[in-house]
């Protein structure tokens, strides 16, 4: 029986598919996967799933998109406008900078504690 193996490097990260192992059952699959896919790389967690339980749809079955030109969505037109005389914009940018600083400070405090 083949078990697909997914490895997560750090807590919170995605489990990425790294290969598979042959094992008679779930417990042995977990034991083998540790050696084959966790021993030499930074690993926080490993998932194993029976290959049969994984469902697939590929680009022959469907059209996934992502192939048409969506450049029109990138609103670049206003990037070079000088907004320094427009009070609303100046205030909004100042607010955003202050909020960003606060977030940074909170993050740092959390990391130090």
């Amino acid at each position, binding site marked *: 029986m083949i078990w697909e193996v997914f490895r997560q490097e750090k807590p919170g990260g995605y489990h990425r598919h790294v290969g598979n*192992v*042959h094992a008679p059952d779930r417990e042995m699959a977990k*034991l*083998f996967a540790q050696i084959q896919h966790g021993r030499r790389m930074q690993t926080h967690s490993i998932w194993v799933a029976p290959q049969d339980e994984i469902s697939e749809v590929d680009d022959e079955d469907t059209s996934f998109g992502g192939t048409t030109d969506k450049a029109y969505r990138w609103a670049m037109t206003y990037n070079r406008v000088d907004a320094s005389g427009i009070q609303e914009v100046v205030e909004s940018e100042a607010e955003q900078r202050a909020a960003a600083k606060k977030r940074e400070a909170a993050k740092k405090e959390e990391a130090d504690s």
Partner: protein
Amino acid sequence: MSLDGPHSLTPDERDAVEELLFRMADDEYVAAERYIEWQIFAPTLESDLALSNIAQDEFGHARLWYDLLQDMGYSEQECIWERDPATWTHSTLVEQPFEEGDWADAILRSYLYDTAENLRMEALVDSSYPPIADRVAKVLAEERYHREHAQSWLERLTGGEHHEKVQAAVDRLFPYALTLFAAGPNEDAIVELGLRTENLDDLREEWLEIVVPFLESLDLTVPEPDEVALPEETGRDASHTDAWFDLYEDFTHTYNELELEEPIRLRGEG
């Protein structure tokens, strides 16, 4: 009481530390030497990698203890490559040859050995010799996988067509496993100095309390420990079975053939 490093030991203390270190290092080294005979022959690729990995861990543990002997003045040649095989003190359990293809033996041996190894390491956590105590955590962390691996296999090998093979391995290996707890000449000093915080009899009892119920839960028959005649060769007094001398010749063959001045160390190694 705590001893300092290798250089301030009295001759008696030194003998005790050396005996303890050689017992552990030789056990790990020889166990690993046997496990690697399975490389490319294990039942599946995955089980091959798992056992090879366990062997690699055991070699690493042997290195931890041989390094401490080198801190006491021994060279690596004197510890391994040019050492008289009739002075090694590993338990005769780990030197036993495998019958061809007898995977049940490899698994059962690993279970018996690693369970004892775990208890022994726990009795060294508070060793009065700090260089030993400092190195125990690494060993303990890896032994857990070894036991899980062996137990999982035993649960699957028993109860079906391979049950009798496991039973035969129990009958054959159990007396040898008891030599894990046989004393060497400095055993009393090892305990009195606090090098190990438990004596061998207590370790043996604890081991039996784990091993016997587990094996019996798999419908295996375990010999009555007190009625088992200990093999004539325990290893702990440097007495060994013939298989050990053949094995020694095998693994020192390349070293001798190359006639090196000293053992090669890989780049980046120790």
